[in-house]
């Protein structure tokens, strides 16, 4: 049984369900059966001492929109890739930008930045003064480096 910790309305009038992280997959499966067939957006928010992940769901048939919210303090959230294929790239993007790990994602790697980039830029404690550069190795793969080296 899924326990809904809090149900409120956002400033835009969309219902927000706050649930426990362990209930996420079960809750989402229920919602998908209810007709929410469109996973629109996954947003991670860095709240400094914990991470918040918002899922925006839409139902084409019922024209309804809901937001599901979970919080995590150890940077892991279950992956929804088994329910919606669109979760794949969204989760990779959030992993890249905020470092949230999605358990069960088969190919969790960075979306925009190269694999060796240090830090996750959208975190509040990301240091912008620590300049990194990207170089290309002989196979055409990118790697991040602090030393600009040749060509820069």
């Amino acid at each position, binding site marked *: 049984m899924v326990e809904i910790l809090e149900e409120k309305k956002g400033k835009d009038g969309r219902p927000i369900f706050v649930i426990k992280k362990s209930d996420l997959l079960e809750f989402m499966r229920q919602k998908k059966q209810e007709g929410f067939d469109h996973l629109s957006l996954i947003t991670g928010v860095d709240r400094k001492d914990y991470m918040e992940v918002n899922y925006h769901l839409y139902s084409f048939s019922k024209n309804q929109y809901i937001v599901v919210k979970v919080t995590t303090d150890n940077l892991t959230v279950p992956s929804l890739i088994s329910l919606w294929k669109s979760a794949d790239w969204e989760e990779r993007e959030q992993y890249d930008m905020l470092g949230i790990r999605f358990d069960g994602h088969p190919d969790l790697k960075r979306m*925009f930045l190269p694999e060796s980039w240090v830090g996750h830029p959208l975190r509040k404690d990301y240091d912008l003064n620590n300049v*990194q*550069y990207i170089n290309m190795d002989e196979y055409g793969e990118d790697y991040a480096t602090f030393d600009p080296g040749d060509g820069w």
Partner: protein
Amino acid sequence: MKTGETGILTTTIDKALEWGRSNSLWPLTFGLACCAIEMMAVQGSHFDISRFGSEIFRNSPRQSDLMIVSGTVTKKMAPRLKRLYDEMPYPKYVIAMGVCVIQGGPYVKGYSVVLGVDRVVPVDVFVPGCPPTPDALTYGIMTLQKKIRGETDR
């Protein structure tokens, strides 16, 4: 030439070469971001870059001698831009189009944008604007032509 003085002949050939070179610039199709759409507009019917002999946009760097860097150069793109520049045959020229290419533009505070393409490749003409209008890019190309012909632009 009647007097038999040497030197006149060579400068004339140089001049002829420079003239020919300046009027048949073949740009590389290298659209990066927003400015690329304005670069397409320059190719299009209204502004028509072919009046200046530059209408043949080549897709291969080996066939082109002008690189119009149109749009933000990110750090991930910079090594590839360098490689494309290296693949172009001499003599080669670079036009930096748009303020992002010149110094980072609106993204100057960020972490992933190169603050000026002249840190990666040498630039001949800077065309400011966000994005520069097609007129500005045409003027940039004309400035480059003058530069190739060795005329000073005052």
